[in-house]
């Protein structure tokens, strides 16, 4: 091993260790106080005590969700930035958040129709809402890919078709709000768009974790060298025997799958996709062999830190993690902007 590889490996290892170290710390922090020893005890030997419930059902679940979803969003951001050759691209560039919001609105409308005799707030069926958001997100990605396919599957055609369809979703959503949704439903849609890790159930977490661990994350890691290659242009990729169109489609589908699953269970947490790869690039440079795993760990760290801060700064009120990541992320992005070349992409 020569050159900068040992340093990059050390940074990656340090970040992974930091994430593990933060797990018990994050469980310990919160409104319900307990000693670290007690927390570690119920963590390894759960019982029926209130502490065990707090640790397992309130805190550990959202911490694991932060790690899994952070890794998916960080990796998806890095992969999409590479195949689009654009530092501002992310899975959300494809209009996923608009499509998902529309899915939520539609789900609420259908549910309301089914159970009129009750108050709307009790009608709320989280799994149905999630599935609708997921279905709409997937449809959105397929439509974008189809339109872009007609235009040759270049990076530019993907972005343009995404922008066009996003406006359509927004218009339909506004139309629904204007004609059909009442105040409670509108505010439910708005509330849902504030990403919140506390919302995810164990079953949903298991689903996201399985899809990520078996499909999304291995694919991104496997394609690391190809992401380096496609940064040099489509022509260069083709000359090395790699189809840029296929790489772009597969990456888009898997990034969208991971992001849509996460979004439909916890709401919109968009900023991590931008922030994690940029922060990782500052630490380990642009080569995806180290950038990809570092972006994933960075995503986990950012989500975990933001969520823990959101739970503790004005406790017992919890600030949704989507708002926290934006608040914390803006200074970093502004710093990267002013530093110029640091973001690694030039016009």
């Amino acid at each position, binding site marked *: *091993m*020569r*050159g*900068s590889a040992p340093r990059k490996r050390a940074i990656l290892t340090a970040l992974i260790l930091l994430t593990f170290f933060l797990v018990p710390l994050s469980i310990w922090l919160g409104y319900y106080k307990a000693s670290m020893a007690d927390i570690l005890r119920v963590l390894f030997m759960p019982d029926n005590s209130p502490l065990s419930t707090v640790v397992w059902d309130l805190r550990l679940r959202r911490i694991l969700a932060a790690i899994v979803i952070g890794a998916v969003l960080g990796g998806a951001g890095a992969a999409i*930035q*590479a195949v689009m*050759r654009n530092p501002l691209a992310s899975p959300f560039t494809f209009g996923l958040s608009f499509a998902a919001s529309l899915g939520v609105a539609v789900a609420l409308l259908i549910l309301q129709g089914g159970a009129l005799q009750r108050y709307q707030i009790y009608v709320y069926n989280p799994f149905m809402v999630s599935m609708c958001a997921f279905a709409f997100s997937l449809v959105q990605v397929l439509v974008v890919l189809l339109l872009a396919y007609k235009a040759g599957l270049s990076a530019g055609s993907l972005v343009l078709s995404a922008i066009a369809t996003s406006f359509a979703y927004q218009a339909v959503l506004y139309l629904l709000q204007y004609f059909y949704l009442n105040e409670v439903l509108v505010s439910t849609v708005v509330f849902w768009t504030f990403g919140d890790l506390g919302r995810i159930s164990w079953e949903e977490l298991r689903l996201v974790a399985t899809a990520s661990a078996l499909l999304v994350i291995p694919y991104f890691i*496997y394609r*690391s*060298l*190809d992401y*380096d*290659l496609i*940064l*040099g*242009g489509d*022509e*260069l990729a*083709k*000359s*090395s*025997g*790699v*189809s840029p169109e296929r790489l772009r489609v597969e990456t888009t589908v898997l990034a969208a799958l991971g992001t849509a699953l996460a979004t439909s269970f916890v709401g919109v947490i968009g900023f991590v996709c931008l922030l994690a790869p940029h922060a990782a*690039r500052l630490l380990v*440079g*642009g*080569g*995806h*062999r180290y950038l990809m795993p570092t972006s994933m760990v960075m995503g986990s760290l950012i989500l975990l830190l933001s969520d823990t801060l959101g739970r503790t700064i004005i406790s017992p009120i919890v600030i949704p993690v989507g708002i926290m990541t934006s608040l914390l992320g803006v200074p970093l992005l502004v710093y990267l902007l002013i530093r110029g*070349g640091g973001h*690694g*992409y*030039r016009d």
Partner: protein
Amino acid sequence: MVIEIEVRGVKVYYKSVRALDGVSLSVRNGEVLSIIGPNGAGKSTLLRVINGVLKPHVGTVLIDKTSLHDLRPRDVARKVGYVPQRLRATGMLTVYDFVMTGRRPHVSFAPTKEDEEKVYEALKVVRLSDLADRALEELSGGELQRAVIARALAGEPEVVLLDEPTSNLDLKYQLEVLSLVRSLSNRGLIVIMALHDLTQAYRASDKILLLNSGKVVAVGDPDEVLRPDLISKVYGVPVIIIKEHKIIVPLF
């Protein structure tokens, strides 16, 4: 061992336009062939055909008697290294990372120790070993072009294609790149490049192919192809050729 690349009667159409119209040529290892011709003559298209990226409508490309277009893209990439005309460096890749992408046709999962060695060998050939950890964006024009050539070499090809390797470079870097190209053919590679500059083509090539509107006007020894009458006819500008210094001067 003699390796030969042969282009036989290649025709390529873009809609109704004939980009290449019955082009044939052959080059052996150790030879440098330059493709010259005015803008739109079909130089880049011909390179893309030899590269395996563009399948010709008629005709074929043979390397060692094997048709290139019967091979998988990955196997073509193992035989043919490509140096694009202008690389837009982006994404903070280091020189090492970038050159490693040239190993792509040989890598099945992740790069191995052997791939790493090949990358450092290629960097040594182009004298960039000291800059392996530098970001591409920080390189000078000449260094970047050498990095792109190292990338092609890292794939251990039999043929290296270069698309206008000296454009956008200062004089000193132009000479540096051309002497590097010569060293590649001395290592036993087949070198095919598209060139704008006729004097450079004159000095750097063993063979020249003159293209005009997709047709071969002349092919062969530089002294045979680079004749004032042919050049004037194809480029529409009268020229003087000073043979003893291998210089071609347009008259205007």
